């Protein structure tokens, strides 16, 4: 008995080891998706400041490219402003509501199977779950969890992401999805069989969900395959946005029409 106690006393650190490994594995596998995201957002309240330093330093790298992109966007917007100045679009702006919130990307990954993006705006800035995120190039993702000052975005490059979109100029819709691997390509599934779509066509958001307004660019059609089993098309899309190079993004903070929400009911 004595020697057994001695043995246990000498090996007590093994118990501590087992205890801490158990705790780690519980954290790793015991949490469901929502708890994991809650960990990320609460963690970000602490680590957000540090990640923000990193984003701030990194934002100096590649300023030239960023500048060029903004100039291109500016030119495009100017052109649109001219052609739309007397149409209805301006009515919304004149109501004094700001429609998009600008946010900085403070953490991002593209190489995992399920990627996430962290942005430095949260509920206190009007950002909430389900809002679309995009930049001057095109669609990025949808806000998954909004913390008070930071939010986690479910980007296109996540197997759980599904965004309603269509071929520019047509009205048949499909869903933008991603199955891991190449961070520059995604699929548009469930497009009706009869849709006229060919290589080089542009895919844009449909505007059928409240996340994105209509006609935000998504990507260019690379390949069209017919799914004989389900009578749908599977379209491979080359994404406009280089997901590994995100700095500033827009969040669509426009409140959805309450009447529409009521009709569609809770999801």
């Amino acid at each position, binding site marked *: 008995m004595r020697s057994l106690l001695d043995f246990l006393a000498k090996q007590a650190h093994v118990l501590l080891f087992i205890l801490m*490994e158990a705790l*780690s594995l519980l954290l790793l596998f015991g949490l469901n998706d929502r708890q994991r995201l809650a960990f990320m957002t609460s*963690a*970000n309240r602490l680590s957000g400041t540090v990640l923000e330093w990193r984003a701030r330093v990194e934002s100096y790298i590649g300023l030239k490219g960023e500048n060029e992109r903004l100039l291109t966007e500016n030119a495009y917007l100017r052109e649109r402003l001219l052609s739309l100045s007397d149409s209805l679009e301006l009515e919304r702006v004149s109501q004094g509501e700001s429609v998009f919130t600008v946010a900085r990307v403070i953490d991002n990954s593209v190489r995992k199977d399920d990627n996430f993006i962290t942005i430095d705006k949260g509920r206190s800035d009007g950002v909430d779950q389900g809002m679309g995120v995009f930049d001057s190039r095109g669609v990025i993702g949808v806000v998954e969890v909004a913390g008070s000052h930071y939010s986690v975005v479910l980007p296109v490059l996540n197997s759980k992401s599904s965004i309603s979109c269509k071929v520019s100029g047509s009205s048949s819709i499909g869903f933008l999805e991603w199955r891991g691997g190449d961070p520059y390509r995604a699929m548009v599934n469930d497009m009706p069989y009869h849709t006229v779509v060919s290589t080089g066509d542009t895919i844009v958001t449909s505007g059928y969900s409240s996340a994105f307004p209509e006609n935000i660019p998504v990507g260019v059609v690379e390949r069209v395959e017919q799914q004989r089993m389900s009578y749908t098309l599977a379209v491979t899309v080359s994404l406009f946005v280089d997901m590994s190079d995100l700095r500033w993004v827009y969040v669509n903070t426009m409140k959805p029409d309450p009447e529409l929400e009521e009709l569609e009911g809770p999801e």
Partner: protein
Amino acid sequence: MAGLVLLQVLFLNRISLFGYVTPLFYLWFIVRFDSSMSRYSMLLWGFVTGLAVDFFTGTPGLNAASATLAAMFQPAMVKLFLSKDRREVIIPGRASMGAGPFAGYIFLMTMLHHSAYFLLRSIPLEDWVVITAKIVFSTLLTFIAMLAVGYSADKPNQRRSI
């Protein structure tokens, strides 16, 4: 420790060579535990370091589990590469162990830690080729980095605190 964790999360986690290879240099902190530390404090420090990295990467438990494992086996690894007659307190390094044994020691430590890390991260284990490639190349990268730091920072006959 704080410095190593910051280096890891601010800079090293951004490195992803060919989409496979990420150096996990924060392990250096555990590699340098001196042999007078109690097993408890080694385990606790290992766990805390891992958890600190996890906090920034949003992977609860992943680094904590692999760092605790490394801290658990650190004393045995040191013993493995140290000649039998030496009993004094040492900080594992080129000066205290000799260049060859130290290289062997950090290689085994890195392999243990990185295997645990990438195996846990890749569950369900589907693509063995990719997982093996990740383990092998990341181990090599971290190993080379530690070798370089170990050789430049740790001159023979000089004691350094961590």
